[in-house]
């Protein structure tokens, strides 16, 4: 079954929904950037902040925002209780990095 099916744990459903919400937020920002470039490219010349034009400000913002959303997702995601059981059945030893 697809992972978003009703058989999934509450934690997994929460994580999936959170991921989709954050994805849509970023998608809206990205679509805005792409559409301005494609249909109103001259707007990118306009000075936005600190003497920088919109192209640089929006471009950097997209990169920084991606990092911020990734960190938010990492902080808010819930641990899935079944995962450790799944892992042990695969004979996969743990390691120091994963313990964090």
């Amino acid at each position, binding site marked *: 079954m697809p992972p978003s099916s009703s058989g999934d744990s509450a934690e997994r459903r929460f994580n999936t929904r959170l991921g989709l919400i954050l994805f849509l937020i970023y998608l809206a920002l990205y679509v805005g950037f792409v559409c301005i470039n*494609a249909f109103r490219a001259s707007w990118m010349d306009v000075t936005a902040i600190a003497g920088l034009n919109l192209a640089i400000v929006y471009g950097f913002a*997209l990169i*920084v925002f991606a990092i911020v959303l*990734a960190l938010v997702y990492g902080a808010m995601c819930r641990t899935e209780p079944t995962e450790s059981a799944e892992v042990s059945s695969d004979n996969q030893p743990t390691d120091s990095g994963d313990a964090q």
Partner: protein
Amino acid sequence: MIYDPSWTAVFVFGAFVLGTVGLSFFLGRKAKSSEGYFAAHGQIPWVVNGVAFAGDYLSAASFLGICGMIAAYGYDGFLYSIGFLAGWIVALFVIAEPMKRLGRFTFADALDSKFNSRGIKAAAGVSTLVVSVFYLIPQMVGAGSLIQPLLGFPHWVGVVLVGIVVITIVVTAGMVSTTWVQFLKGSLLVVFSAVLVVMLLNRGFSTDNETFQTIGPLAADSVRSGAIDGRELIPPDNGWEEHEEFVRLQRDDDLGFDLFHVEPTAEANQILLRQAQSVTKTADGKTLIDGAPLGDGDGERQLKPVGAVSKLPEGKTETGKLGPISFFTTLRDSEVMLWRNEKFKLADGSTATVHYQKATEGTKVLRPGEHPKFAGIRGDEATGSLNFLSLMLALFCGTASLPHILIRYYTVKDGAAARKSTIVGIATIGFFYVLTLYLGLGAMTSGALDLTDNNMAAPLLARSLNELLFAIISAIAFTTVLGTVSGLILASSGAIAHDLLGGVLGMKLSGESQVRIAKIAAVIVGAIAIVLGILFKELNVGYLVGWAFSIAASANLPALVMLLFWKQTTKEGIIWSVVVGMVSSLGWILLSADTYKSVYGLDPADAIAPFSQPGIVTIPLAFLTLIVVSLLTQPKTDELVA
């Protein structure tokens, strides 16, 4: 340009390559089984895997291609940085954890997790091979570009060298060594790129008005007199008479001529002559630079390095140290000298490529639309905007569909580790992409650019700052290629051994046999990559990667996303989606204007595809195919119950 090999560079390069291969042999002991070879036993720590993601992803396209494109045209190259990073959002929020849960060794494993279908394995296996080969081409082209200034060897030697080293790495140890090579490479690339940017900001900008001569303003009819500025004007002949925008002046040393581009000024009937450079390939295969034989000996000439700020704000000649924001605001108020080229046939059958200067306002290199491939967004035709939308869509959807990225999710122990490693990857990659704009614009104004190969912009920027830094950056860039190519060859060999031979042909292979066949496949794919890297040497590596993203996004992403989020997806839907996405995007690329011009040498106006980037058509087409075929092939109710 002719490069003199630097012993420092040779030493640093040798140390990097030996270290990489040594590490590979050392870790090879752990990879006897198929679990070890393809997935590193799922034991890689998530932090290491996250940086290895960066190592895998920050390929020759990111470091060499993007910086090169920014150096030549400005902001347009940065659009790739933005699109490449945005793709990771899809990977993190949509793909990462399900991919880890569903798969085992390859992309096909995940796609086939629900159906156990030979058709899915075949389609996904072939798609993996096609995407990987398209992604391999720019990496190999980049390797060849790097070897020239580093060791003084021709381009093809670099391609062969990287091919041999990578095959050695993959054959000796598989995913374990590939991961650690990626980790080391990713870390070093980001750290030393940051060092390079700090040094660049400390140096600031300075004007250069001496390397190339400017004559004028002159009366417009002076180009029809016998002499200019006291130098004899060579009468236009042999086809030059059809290109009145260029004039040739005699040199005192009789080493060919000095070429100038005639530029109109704001005042009527006044012109300016800016020095240009020409490369002529004669009918008998010789290369001439401004009429003199190419070489660095007596009686020979070579192209001069380029890239300069021609005017700084307030008439300054240098800025001194700059901050990360004043770097852009200073450049905005400056004038930079970009170089453009024109290629034409001469009457004696030779072909001349003329490189000429174009004074450009700083504001224009800090906005999109200067590169010929992006200029359409400032034009009136809809195809320009469509081409742009298509590329940005492919970059957004492509990352989470690249086989060599997807298989990295199997090297960690669980979905949470996959998620965490993706976050580390995004942070590392995002930081690097911020640096690319500084590196590219720094290279644009460094006076070190090679007119014949903009892929070398970042390493040559380093050379303009410090010879040791150049050696280190070049060696890291070479290791960058090694790491990415290793990952791609590993993904390809896994597709052949695990998906096609084991899954489709039904060959019962033990773990060790699978590994043995994968290693043989790695040698074959490596050899193919070497040949393609030599054939495609002229193309910008960043642009080539755009094609790989389009194919990956069209063939792989629709099937993967629909499998995860649409319960009515059937195996027939997946198979047809992968096949239609792959064939349509590949076909579109092969019939596009860019391929006509750069690969076939045909008139791009004859191209069948209306614009070059296929994603905006082929990605929705693959989604639509999956939906229609799935609806037509829904299992009957009794089968569902069973």
